[in-house]
């Protein structure tokens, strides 16, 4: 079974630029999550989708972050404009159902904002 795919793996941008991350969950998984993992910290949930609907986005900084999940499969997370404090690893995870007791994580995208 293929795992959660993410791209790009690494991204370096300057502050005030925009960036987008892509995630392809495990086939058949209904729930998709985006986490932010700052160096030395645990992952923090940003947003979770059930199929293509948003279940929770209470910790998403909506003034600069946006996310969508088209057709209940792939998802993109966008930051516009980026700030220095957005430097982190952005992890995508998926689970078979909702709520997802077992979440499968992708390798993440490491974002550096200079």
């Amino acid at each position: 079974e293929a795992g959660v795919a993410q791209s790009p793996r690494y991204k370096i941008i300057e502050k005030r630029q925009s960036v987008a991350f892509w995630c392809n969950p495990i086939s058949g998984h209904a729930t998709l999550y985006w986490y932010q993992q700052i160096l030395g910290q645990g992952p923090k949930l940003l947003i979770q989708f059930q199929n293509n609907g948003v279940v929770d986005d209470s910790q998403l900084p909506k003034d600069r972050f946006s996310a969508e999940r088209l057709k209940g499969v792939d998802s993109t997370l966008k930051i516009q404009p980026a700030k220095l404090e957005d430097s982190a690893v952005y992890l995508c995870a998926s689970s078979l159902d909702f709520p997802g007791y077992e979440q499968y994580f992708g390798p993440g995208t490491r974002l550096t904002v200079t």
Partner: protein
Amino acid sequence: QQQVKQSPQSLIVQKGGISIINCAYENTAFDYFPWYQQFPGKGPALLIAIRPDVSEKKEGRFTISFNKSAKQFSLHIMDSQPGDSATYFCAASIGGYKLSFGAGTTVTVRA
């Protein structure tokens, strides 16, 4: 605010020794407590999980001990191996919804 507090931040153990990582929580509504293992450059992977109706769960060399009254739970890695060197995260949620992670513990197993 951090809902799950994890300690220590790092630990070093000799091969064959026991690694112990502790976590504490405040929200008594939490009813699902997983542990995740993360290797450098990889995403976290579910290792073992427990619910508050049991005090201990064992899977191979990994054991979770759960103390509901103290609102604490811990991971024990028995017979630690170099391949266990990784960062371990405890987490908690209500019904599997909105996992809150601890800050992580980096375990180094010396051969």
